């Protein structure tokens, strides 16, 4: 999977079909053909999965939840205890006097206000570098407070789906790109930051810091929609903030790396993933190379790393291996 096609996929294009034999690298070709010849595969898979289930790990999820709690907790404590660590909220803040601005909020404000604001530029560049280093959509799964609520709603959705009470009404991923353009256009055209009025990230963040308000009704509506209709509807198909950070993460050094060799192609990773199209590569015969970096839409949440029974999905920092 080339970088370009992974970018197209982020904007909503359907993932590529299974590639034909000519485009594999020699190593990948060899592994694919070796896998065809393995005997007693079923038993082996069952054994490996049983072992995984014996010591099921939630290492990355736990770290990530801790990160969301710490980031948002610092905002809350900073104001409630008046210790001025991080002043502000998710949309814009100041850490020890240094400006930080959410990239999407800054974009909306700039489009609506039509002026370049120097503090906003400082804040934006700082945040841009930070999230580029950390992986772009890493923001979503490691900092966004709505992501955590949505994860819990997703668990309820999956339980209900298991009981056949709800069905995941999947949507077209191109919707997010359309909404992105519409909201940018609305901000520019009307002079109001239209998206900010319904941004669940801003609403939840402000509710945590400054106390709850009526705006939380909108967040509850979204969560209910995700529980009863579409799994992770907002984060998967709608949120422009996710797309902004996705674009930032296109060339990020931090990513999840897939290794073809030991993969059993069972697809457990795709079951838990927020953005399963980035894991298409794990389907049998899809990987063109022995190692593949997942696309920019990946939120680096690590659920696939936790669930993979063979360790074929791992966090990786580009260039770090060469240095060490």
């Amino acid at each position, binding site marked *: 999977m080339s970088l370009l096609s992974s970018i197209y996929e982020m904007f909503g294009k359907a993932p590529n079909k299974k590639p034909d034999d000519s485009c594999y690298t020699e190593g990948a070709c060899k592994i694919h053909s070796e896998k065809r010849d393995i005997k007693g595969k079923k038993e082996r898979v069952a054994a490996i999965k049983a072992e995984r289930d014996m010591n099921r790990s939630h290492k990355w999820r736990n770290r990530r939840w801790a990160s969301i709690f710490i980031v948002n907790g610092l905002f809350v404590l900073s104001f409630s205890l008046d210790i001025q660590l991080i*002043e502000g909220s998710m949309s814009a803040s100041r850490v020890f006097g240094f400006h930080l601005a959410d990239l999407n*909020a800054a974009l909306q*404000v700039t489009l*609506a206000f039509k002026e370049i604001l120097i503090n906003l530029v400082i804040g934006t560049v700082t945040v841009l570098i930070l999230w580029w280093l950390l992986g772009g959509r890493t923001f979503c799964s490691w900092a966004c407070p709505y992501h955590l609520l949505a994860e819990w709603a997703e668990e309820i959705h999956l339980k209900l789906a298991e009981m056949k009470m709800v069905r995941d009404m999947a949507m077209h991923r191109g919707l997010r790109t359309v909404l992105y353009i519409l909201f940018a256009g609305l901000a520019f055209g009307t002079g*109001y*930051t239209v998206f900010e009025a319904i941004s669940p990230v801003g609403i939840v963040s402000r509710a945590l810091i400054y106390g709850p308000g*009526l705006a939380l009704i909108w967040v509850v509506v979204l969560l209910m929609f995700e529980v009863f209709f579409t799994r992770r509807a907002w984060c998967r198909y709608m949120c422009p903030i996710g797309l902004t950070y996705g674009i930032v993460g296109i060339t990020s050094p931090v990513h999840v790396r897939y290794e073809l060799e030991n993969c059993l192609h069972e697809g457990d990773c795709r079951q838990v993933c927020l953005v399963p199209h980035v894991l298409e590569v794990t389907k049998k015969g899809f990987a063109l190379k022995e190692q593949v970096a997942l696309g920019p839409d990946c939120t680096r949440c690590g659920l696939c790393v936790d669930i993979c029974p063979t360790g074929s999905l791992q966090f990786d920092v580009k260039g770090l291996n060469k240095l060490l």
Partner: protein
Amino acid sequence: MADAPKTAPKRKSPTVRQLRERRRVLRSIGAGVGVIGAALLGFFPVVKKWAERLRPPGAIEEQEFLAACIKCGQCVQVCPVEAIVLGDLDEGYGVGAPYIDARKQACDFSCDAVQCVLACPTGALSHDTDVKEQVTMGIARLSRPKACLARLGQGFKGTARGDDFLGLHRYIEVDRWTPIPIADHPYDLDLCDLCERECPIEGAITIERNNFDLTDLRGTPVVFETCVGCGMCEMICPVDPPAIVIEKNARWEDV
């Protein structure tokens, strides 16, 4: 010879897969319309001016203010009297934008240096405002002259807003640095002059005698062009509803 039965050109019936895809696209369009629609609802409160708000010191013109404000609440955090609060859902695009409910807690410039302006990361509170005298939030107006105690020639004794009023004010003669509850500061005045007495801007309000008769105490609060519209007079006014209020967003140029 009978004609062969005419058959309408056969339309291929869609496959299950195509039907599913079609539903998926329609569902996405529906959801998209829903989200955009919900966002556009924010226009109503703004355009219809359901709630005109007193914006914090340094706020630029209302429409531009809503555009420039990034809704982070940093101004809320620095205010020593916690005068600034954030707008809620019923304010449309004012969700998360700061305002001051002067009657509940006015800005009394306890911070001395327009801290909220300094905190604003976007210039929605304009950095052209350096000192309190440059602020233009609105203009005080004696809206109920008949209720005004000074106009009636009455004095005032007790706490200005009752003993359980939570509002804060910095009384320089009590504590130069820390605002205290208004409920902790009772008055005993022969003629009520609370609006003039507690006004943080020099010469913005004076009680002017109605006539030269020294036995007649009656006077009228007169607002001068130095008034910045901070709302301190509205908060401290002991009659309820207040006799003096802030005309939000009013500018002296327009008067």
